[in-house]
């Protein structure tokens, strides 16, 4: 098991090198002179030239990338053009908010999706099935930011139950963003749970336990669900990338002080090192979560665990 984790972590290195190179290259295409951005349009050309030299902007691309990577492996994400503060500190301060939102919305998604998917499968082709699948289709089709606006309209503006934006009211502030993001995430999980559940309850061993006279409830929870959950876990893992993208929009709608919102603000301020830092942190997070999902398979499915050795 530990050998497998180490192997996977080592395999991550070339991917992360590629990702940083790609992101560094894309953001390097950005027009405009960072030195001018920092000093302002009225700055004297010799000052700009001096700052360019000091920041190493005149070096070739590969040298600048190497320097960035050298700092990155030491945990240094560069310096913001705007505030002149280390990007790492800014991102670090906001990371917990993004993680909390990701966790709560995943929880919302799973809590909504599993019952919907299971009921739809057990009561296949009934009204329940139709309604649950319709709800999950809504989840796929509604943009997360529109869902967010509608939630704000109903629960904040009309009913006044939750704050419109921000994170100052603790759990209360967290409810609407989690529901908006979780609802979008729920759809694919519910649909996969339904189809894998349908497949599982037609298996021979389920017929056997039914023939043994086990109560229907035990058949579903103890025998069918455990096996049906394997594709569900895969989809939860696959959805994480989309969810990270969705969290940028959700944080923007609810003014949630996470990395996504910081990234949008940095883009608007043309603060390239901050944008770079945010995307790198998202990409590393994405890779680590994927690894985690792979490990979770092992706990659900002993057949997969056997391959880890």
């Amino acid at each position, binding site marked *: 098991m530990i050998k497998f984790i180490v192997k996977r972590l080592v395999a991550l290195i070339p991917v992360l090198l590629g990702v940083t190179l790609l992101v560094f290259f894309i953001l390097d295409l950005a027009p405009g002179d960072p030195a001018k951005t920092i000093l302002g349009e009225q700055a004297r050309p010799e000052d700009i030239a001096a700052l360019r030299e000091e920041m190493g902007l005149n070096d070739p691309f590969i040298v600048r990338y190497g320097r960035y990577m050298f700092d990155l492996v030491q945990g240094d994400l560069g310096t913001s053009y705007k505030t002149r503060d280390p990007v790492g500190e800014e991102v670090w301060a906001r990371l917990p908010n993004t993680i909390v939102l990701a966790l709560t919305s995943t929880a919302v998604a799973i809590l909504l999706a599993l019952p919907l998917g299971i009921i739809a499968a057990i009561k296949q082709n009934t009204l329940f099935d139709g309604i649950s699948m319709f709800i999950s289709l*809504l989840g*796929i089709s509604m*943009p997360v930011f529109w869902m967010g*606006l509608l939630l704000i309209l109903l629960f904040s503006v009309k009913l006044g139950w939750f704050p419109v934006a921000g994170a100052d009211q603790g759990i209360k502030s967290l409810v609407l963003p989690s529901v908006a993001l979780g609802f979008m995430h729920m759809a694919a999980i519910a649909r996969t749970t339904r189809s894998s559940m349908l497949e599982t309850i037609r298996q021979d061993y389920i017929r056997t336990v039914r023939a043994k006279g086990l109560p229907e409830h035990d058949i579903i929870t103890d025998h069918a669900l455990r096996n049906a959950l394997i594709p569900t876990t895969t989809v939860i893992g696959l959805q994480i990338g989309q969810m990270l993208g969705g969290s*940028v929009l959700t944080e923007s709608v609810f003014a949630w002080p996470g990395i996504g919102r910081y990234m949008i603000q940095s883009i608007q301020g043309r603060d390239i090192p901050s944008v770079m830092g945010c995307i790198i942190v998202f990409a590393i997070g994405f890779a680590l979560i994927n690894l985690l999902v792979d490990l979770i398979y092992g706990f659900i499915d002993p057949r997969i665990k056997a391959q880890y050795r």
Partner: protein
Amino acid sequence: MNNVSAVKENVQISVKKKSQIADIWKRLCRNKTAVLGLVIVILLVLVGILSPIIFDYETQVIKTDYSNTLQPPSAAHPFGTDELGRDILIRTLYATSTSLSIGVVTVIVALAIGLVLGSAAGYFGGKVDMIIMRIMDIFLAIPGTLLAICIVASLGNSIINLVIAQAVAATPKFARVVRGAVMTVRDSEYVEAARAIGAKDATIIFHDVLPNSLAPIIVQTTLEVASVILSIAGLSFIGLGIPAPMPEWGAMLSASRAYIRDYSYMCMFPGLAIMITILSLNLLGDGLRDALDPRLR
């Protein structure tokens, strides 16, 4: 004699092809939700084509009218007017053509590149496969929306950059699907036969392999149009998409945020338009998946 048998063969082939398409069409028609999706998609395409013809862009779509701002829905303005006095119904309809055309163009670009990369990787295998797919993996290691945000943030927001950003984010997905599809037919006997009679690789790929791997590619294309439209709306919502004053659903929703307290109707219709578009494309895509490959049911 030769001629006769050639004609015979032609007839047979055309009959067989027709019956296969007819078969798929019949299966699609039996699926009520897929038909609903198809009908809505056709209606949306009509709206997209007709609205730029019916409405005048300068005077009806983008012209500000300060005597008419923030009017609630009425007979004159069924969806109301926005903060600049523009009719929300007209803008919502007009935005259909913006979103659909950008969505389709983006997907065509991504599909073209994905087809070449994916079929090369799947067909040749070995080193070619490894190099192409490792590069695709790097693109896939960044969530698509973030990659698109990164590209637009760097290049600046214009329609061309938006298409580039979305196409770059979508290409690896196509490459992967095409590669998978190609690999399943690569070792079949008719490909071997084509190789045995000395057909060139490119001919085999485009003539024998791709036509037989079309099903998953068609499905992915339909679903990807939906995902690109959703992504464009998202980028426009955070100010990185279609530049103002061109109407776009996400940008319209973004503008409505400031008025949500007193003019909530503003945030209804563009959102509904996105939802209907994505919903119909997804219904059609799911229906096509079932119709093209009955084994998947």
